[in-house]
């Protein structure tokens, strides 16, 4: 069914229509996820990262609407599809993993029902084959005795196992793109590692993964590229390792210096003052300028577009990316090299310094 195809999102704009005004929640977000690659969408709560993904899936709440842009999956613009056509994409071509399996799995249906129903909806196979695949996938994600466990209800599994079952539910149709919305935030560190390694195997098979996260460690361990979102906009877009080695945007570097790291006791903890704006009160100009220690008058007046940035990007050597567990397939490696040079940042001051 779904052969490997890339997801290209371009100038995505999403709005929430409230009673008295329209809120721009996602503003001109662009990115590409290629087969076998993982993109991290990094941002704090309210940055619009989840809404952006729900826009691509076209599963916005009633008040939300996509106001512009494209989301091409293997050449088809998902935003232009009819609801009927879109339904065929969901679950079959794009799978989704949620933060909390306890909430995302229906408590009153068995795993079998929940793992096979979309195979049947999409007409991928018949019931018997669907069950066989479901059992196989449950085994793949490391659930012991899958033939037996498939008859259980979600609440009968431990937290880690539930999360695995949910990943299995998204994987069973072998989608070309997987959207994972903070899949490891609610689990313990040891389980987190196991889940990430599980997802890495999926990536190795050619699935493109979008990982929404606020954890820079997770992004670095698992992802190839990252976009950093703040107040609905992308403030930085870069391969992950140079991004963390040399954050360009003041917000990215603020996030970095707010993040504590084991074994880095000496690094100063420099919190960003203030809190992220809620979108109803988005500051003019660069939304980050009220919290930015480098802000000048100009920052509060004009929008900051994404600009190419090359500062300090040169010290990245090809091959370091291979450590993240991506397959050493020649073609993808070439692209990775190509991408190491391409970084974008939405800050004129950073561009000047870089």
């Amino acid at each position, binding site marked *: 069914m779904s052969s490997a195809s890339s997801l290209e999102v371009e100038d995505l704009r999403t709005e929430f229509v409230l009673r008295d005004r329209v809120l721009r929640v996602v503003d001109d977000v662009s990115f590409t996820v290629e087969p076998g690659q993982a993109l991290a969408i990094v941002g704090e709560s309210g940055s619009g990262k989840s809404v952006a993904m729900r826009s691509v*899936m076209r*599963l916005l709440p*009633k008040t939300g609407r996509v106001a512009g842009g494209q989301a091409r999956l293997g050449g088809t613009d998902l935003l232009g599809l009819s609801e009927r056509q879109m*339904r*065929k*994409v*969901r*679950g*079959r071509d794009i*799978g*989704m993993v*949620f933060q*909390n399996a306890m*909430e*995302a*799995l*229906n*408590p*009153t*249906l068995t795993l079998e029902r929940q793992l096979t*129903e*979309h195979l049947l*909806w*999409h007409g991928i196979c018949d019931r018997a084959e669907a069950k066989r695949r479901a059992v196989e996938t449950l085994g793949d994600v490391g659930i012991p005795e899958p033939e037996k466990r498939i008859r259980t*209800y979600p*609440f*009968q599994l431990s937290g880690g196992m539930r999360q695995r079952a*949910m990943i299995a*539910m998204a994987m069973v149709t072998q989608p070309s793109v997987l959207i994972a919305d903070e899949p490891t935030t609610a689990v313990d560190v040891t389980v987190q590692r196991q889940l990430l390694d599980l997802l890495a195997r999926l990536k190795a098979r050619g699935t493109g993964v979008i990982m929404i996260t606020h954890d820079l460690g997770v992004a670095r361990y698992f992802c190839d590229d990252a976009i950093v979102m703040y107040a609905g906009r992308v403030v930085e877009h870069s391969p992950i390792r140079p991004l963390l080695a040399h954050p360009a945007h003041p917000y990215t570097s603020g996030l970095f210096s707010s993040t504590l790291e084991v074994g880095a006791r000496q690094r100063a903890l420099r919190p960003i003052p203030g809190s992220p704006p809620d979108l109803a009160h988005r500051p003019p100009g660069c939304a980050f300028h009220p919290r930015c220690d480098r802000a000048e008058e100009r920052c509060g007046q004009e929008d900051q577009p994404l600009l190419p940035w090359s500062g300090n990007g040169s010290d990245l050597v090809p091959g370091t990316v291979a450590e993240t567990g991506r397959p050493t397939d020649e073609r993808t490696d070439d692209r990775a090299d190509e991408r190491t040079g391409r970084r974008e940042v939405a800050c004129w001051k950073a561009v000047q310094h870089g």
Partner: protein
Amino acid sequence: MSFMTYLSKRVVRMVLSLTAVSMITFTLLQLAPGNFADIQRISAGASQFGGAGTEDMVHAFASRYGEEIPAWRQYLIFMKGAVTWDFGPSYKYPAQDVQDIIAQGFPISATIAIIAVLLSLVIAIPVGVYAAVRQNSAADHGTMFLITLGTALPNYLTGVILVLVFTLTLGVLPSSGWDGPQHMVMPVLALVLGPTAVLARYVRSSMLETLREEYVVAALAKGGPRSTVITRHALRNSMIPIVTVLGPLLASLMTGTVFVEALFRIPGLGLYFAQAAASRDMPLLMGTALFFALILMTMNLIVDLVYGYLDPRIRAAGGVSRWRRSQKSPQRQPA
């Protein structure tokens, strides 16, 4: 705890409650001014202009119904029979045993009740789901407006309006009695409005809550057709709380809505109960009260069992109350 232990505990609690109900009813009856004989005398006196022999009549009544012996013994005698489902003859209808009156009246009340509840379910579920899916639309507001009318109007008022329209104006339906399906139409219609409104409200709010759950989004994200997701994922889970409302509702309708039975002069159980209370007919009152309580508690038990069937979490815990309690302790227990 096995299912059987659970069930037997419930039965023990039911027996205790029934005993309490019988005691309360009996005490109230003892506190009431006048006994059956007095009431008979008053009504007899009223009709026979104080005819002779009433004193004798009272005395005869008193010895016949044991009203001369102490109250606690009367109670014990009654309860002794009640245990074997023998409530003895009614005072007012001495030719009939109370259990026979129940056996006659209950099917009538139950028929009306079951038809009314089924009908209201058939109407309420689609209406509630529709209103929830279209939340805040004009259709939702309109439906809920009509629903409010239904909740606000008591069934006897609806009954009066129905009589006005169908009997007095159109003349198509008989206004009283119990003899064939044409007698059922108006009582059922009068009864159906309230439960429909209540159920539709519950379905709507329960459905709204379920639709906000993440597993509904997750099902849509798997490519589920909206209608399938709504019926298979959302509706099933929304129906679970509805069951808790349904039990008491059915029970209270089955035990006869006195007002409607009085209005349409239907010989249902509710009517007998009201008469028994008015005439201090001890065995009939005690019998019907116990029977009502029994029905209500059985319904609650059935609800709990069905609830468990619908929700595997409860099935696994072994009963609703245990599940609810277990929700409080181990899950919230600090780790």
